[in-house]
């Protein structure tokens, strides 16, 4: 009952100063709109840029690095264990890139509940032969279906069908940069020289474009068996095992575990691409600070308007108090006014934020580097809307608190006698 009276009075006061109230609410609306749009856009951009790398990078990569053995025979001999052994000019031996016992590893990793999927890979260093010139490059032999499932291979194959890699024997999908240099078209036969000197003809069935030119200029894809054949290896020859986890954050821990377990090199994404995380978090931080600054500015607007309203309505406050409204009732009235401005402004801001985001989402954005993108990226994360309205209401509440406290302490005797 009491609450209803307070809302009634707040409504009447709002109505009496409708223009000012609307201006204050528009301030909140504007800042929430910009807050949501800014975060949606920035986060969409972040996802896009991160996706550029993260989508195609395994969370964990198992491989064998060519490196000199850290333990030399003399270290293993107990007779010399107390000596200080100096061995010069150590060279790596063997140089086998193959992952030993990979069938068992694949089986074991496949059963791990933390793992989303695995994709085996063979990387072969090659030369692309263009007449008398040889271009260095790398052919990745992949399990086409696994590669598509985990790394969205299909999105990057701009010409041709990625499935043909499995169907057409000795086929290759070459990078757009490579294709431009070789003047190769789908259907052409190109020749490739392997590191061992074998020259192999392969049929071009498509192009791929990753968005990163350095990669497009050197990299090509073929099926696992094609590359194994190229290198003269058996079907069990695998140089890389790419693993995607359900949760990215676990990668360093799981990588360490596999390193110990399988005695291979394991690289996690956080270590390999730490700069992306930093970039994303800094961009997010900037968008949040700008958004919150906007809200605080709107808060000052509300503070001003309420303060002015209190000076104008001193008589009203005095009479309310004289007729039996307590200080806390008066405070509630002015807080109700502030919160009404905040809630109405925030809700409108959410709607306009969504509309503005949708508008940006429809603006064409074509760039050669990003084949999968045709409009500006927007992330419609409902969290932004929640944060927006929460901050909007908190800011207006705080902005209303001081004026409301002031109103509650108005001494009616001073006002009434002062006339």
């Amino acid at each position: 009952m009491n609450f209803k009276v307070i809302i009634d009075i707040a409504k009447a006061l709002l109505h009496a100063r409708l223009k000012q109230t609307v201006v204050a609410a528009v301030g909140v609306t504007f800042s929430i709109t910009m807050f949501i749009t800014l975060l949606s856009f920035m986060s969409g951009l972040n996802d896009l840029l991160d996706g550029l790398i993260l989508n195609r990078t395994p969370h964990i990569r198992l491989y064998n690095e060519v490196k000199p053995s850290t333990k030399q025979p003399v270290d293993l001999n107990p007779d010399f264990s107390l000596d200080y052994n100096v061995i010069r000019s150590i060279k790596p031996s063997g140089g086998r890139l193959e992952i030993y016992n990979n069938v068992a590893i694949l089986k074991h990793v496949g059963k791990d509940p933390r793992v989303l999927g695995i994709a085996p890979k063979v990387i072969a260093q090659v030369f692309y032969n263009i007449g008398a010139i040889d271009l260095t490059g790398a052919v990745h032999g992949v399990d086409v279906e696994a590669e598509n499932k985990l790394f969205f291979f299909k999105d990057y194959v701009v010409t041709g069908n990625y499935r043909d890699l499995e169907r057409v024997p000795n086929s290759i999908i070459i990078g757009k940069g490579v294709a431009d240099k070789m003047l190769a078209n789908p259907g052409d036969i190109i020749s490739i020289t392997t590191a061992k000197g074998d020259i192999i003809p392969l049929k071009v069935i498509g192009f791929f474009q990753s968005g990163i030119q350095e990669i497009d200029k050197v990299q090509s894809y073929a099926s696992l068996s094609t590359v194994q054949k190229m290198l003269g290896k058996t079907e069990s020859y695998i140089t890389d095992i790419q693993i995607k986890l359900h949760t990215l954050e676990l990668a360093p821990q799981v990588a360490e575990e596999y390193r110990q377990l399988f005695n291979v090199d394991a690289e996690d994404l956080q270590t390999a691409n730490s700069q992306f995380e930093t970039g994303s978090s800094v961009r997010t931080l900037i968008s949040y600070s700008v958004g919150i600054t906007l809200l605080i500015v709107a808060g000052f607007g509300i503070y001003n308007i309420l303060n002015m309203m209190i000076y104008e309505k001193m008589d009203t406050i005095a009479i309310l108090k004289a007729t039996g409204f307590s200080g806390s009732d008066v405070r509630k009235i002015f807080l109700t006014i502030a919160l009404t401005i905040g809630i109405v402004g925030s809700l409108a801001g959410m709607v306009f934020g969504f509309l503005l985001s949708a508008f940006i989402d429809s603006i064409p954005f074509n760039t050669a580097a990003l084949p999968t993108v045709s409009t500006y990226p927007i992330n419609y994360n409902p969290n932004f809307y929640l944060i927006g309205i929460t901050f909007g209401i908190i800011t207006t509440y705080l902005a209303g608190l001081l004026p409301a406290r002031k109103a509650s302490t108005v001494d009616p005797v001073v006002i009434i006698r002062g006339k």
Partner: protein
Amino acid sequence: MSDIAIHTKGINKYFHDPKTIHVLKDVGFDIYKGEFVSIIGKSGCGKSTLLYILSTMDTDFEGELTIDGQNMKGRSGVELARIRNEKIGFVFQFHYLLNEFSVLKNVMLPALKLGKLPSEQIEAQAIKKLELFGMGQHIHKKAHQLSGGEKQRVAIARALINDPIIIMGDEPSGNLDKKNGKIVFDFFQEIVQNFRQTLLVVTHDPEFAERSGRVIEMDDGRIVRS
């Protein structure tokens, strides 16, 4: 005790700004229910100050104040507001209606705050009170559309809405012409006679005072006649 509306004893009041002035000196009197009391005195003698102390709005004083048998000392702001709401009705010199509201709503607000009755009943009562004072045809007007005399009649209706024990007036006719002043006085008299309510009015109009039932005269912070 139950027929004493206001009991005061040894009330002293000081103003400290800019220097300490002793405004009320050992004021004490009783007002009985159903009395029509005028407080008169020269301006600056402390009569308005006394009224605001009696109204519980000014709590910064020494002495004893009992309204309807309840001691007013040491109560919280919320409690005092509740007592004002329930037991005291106000009529001020400058009408003090809320311009944001209609005449009807102005009268209803104290009762809505009290919350004892549903709002339909409050509305019916407010209309009855307004009709009593000849304001029946103006109930949906905004407060600022009324003349001075009309405003004061609405203010009286508002003071009566919660059927308070005592109605206080600070120069209620001071801002009105003779005709309207007389109308207001007649209403006051009617309230006392018909509803057995208590009236305490500060005025400097000796004619007004003499016609009321009892006169308390003040001079320099002391009561010289009561």
